[in-house]
């Protein structure tokens, strides 16, 4: 089931690259006044590459350019339109976030309870519930197809559901040295956020 796929994935896949599409499938209802909720934001897509532990590039290319990158120690967010790089120590930026599942060190069961939830549309899903109650996530779903990472569903505490679907995933690709080294684009403001 999903849990076996995840364990195999975490054990065998030390690095991977591929493309993703991100869709918000459920927007939270606005609070107090019950005003009709937020309109779900549109679809975003891009590509990713990661190498455990703590190195990843998560690049949104459509409909705008937003780059999230970690070199194992530092975490950068580059926004092309705002011409700005926000820099932070990686520290626990990953924490119990879905990024930790893919990119972090692989003691997942330390921070998540796992549960198989079966196959849907050919994808074998498992549910991960963060053990600590103080995270943005209520639950994370991960789906595998023939043992390959296929999708993730991020449920946050406000009822947002973000669906990530992965394609063209390559396991353990050869990555040139310096793949994760971040150099701020010329002219961009670098800010410690």
């Amino acid at each position, binding site marked *: 089931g999903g849990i076996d796929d995840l364990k195999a994935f975490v054990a065998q896949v030390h690095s991977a690259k591929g493309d993703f599409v991100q869709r918000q499938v459920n927007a939270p209802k606005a609070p107090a006044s019950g005003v009709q909720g937020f309109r779900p934001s549109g679809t975003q897509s891009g590509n990713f590459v990661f190498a455990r532990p703590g190195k990843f590039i998560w690049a949104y290319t459509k409909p705008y350019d937003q780059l999230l990158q970690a070199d194992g120690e530092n975490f950068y*967010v580059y926004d092309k339109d705002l011409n700005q790089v926000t820099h932070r120590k990686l520290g626990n930026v990953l924490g119990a976030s879905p990024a930790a599942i893919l990119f972090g060190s692989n003691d997942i069961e330390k921070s998540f309870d796992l549960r198989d939830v079966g196959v849907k549309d050919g994808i074998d899903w498992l549910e991960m519930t963060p053990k600590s109650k103080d995270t943005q996530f209520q639950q994370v779903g991960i789906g595998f197809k023939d043992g390959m990472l296929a999708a993730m569903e991020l449920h946050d505490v406000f009822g947002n559901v973000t669906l990530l679907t992965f394609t063209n995933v390559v396991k353990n690709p050869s990555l040139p040295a310096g793949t994760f080294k971040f150099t701020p684009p010329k002219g961009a403001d670098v*800010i410690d956020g």
Partner: protein
Amino acid sequence: CAPTQVRPPSAEQTAATARTQVDYDGRFAIKYNDQNGTERNAYGNFTWHQQGDTINIELKSPLGQTLAIIESAPSSATLQLPNKPPQFAAKVDDLMRDALGFSLPVSGLRYWLEPAPAPDSKATIETDPHNGRIKQLEQDGWTVDYYEYTPENNVKRMNLSHENPPLAIRLVLDR
């Protein structure tokens, strides 16, 4: 081009603006000073949902998780943070400053995003003689610079700056 003095828009115009439902999606970067004067920065995605006189702003992480929901209604304001009980106040500015360390000029922004001056105070506007689009607007202690418009004359890129307390906001609108 000389900045022109603007008479506040007529009542009908203000009523028309109040009735509409407006939605924006975008990204923001804010530079502000916290309570003990240290410069801080915040960056993220946001969703703006305006219905009549009630404005909801959702600050989000790039992966779509809500970091805060701010609701500003004519006489009340609400702010929600993950895993925390909602906070209420009469004015949204105080609520945001206490909880987030900075506050957005929500009441002004609703008009500046159109783009237009807010109706109830004086504004100085500089328009581009070539296309009549607003280049810069000064109102309520804010300087708003419009850098980019979409072909349909919607605001794409704008900066807002405030002297005291110092606050600089960069906004890009995707929708």
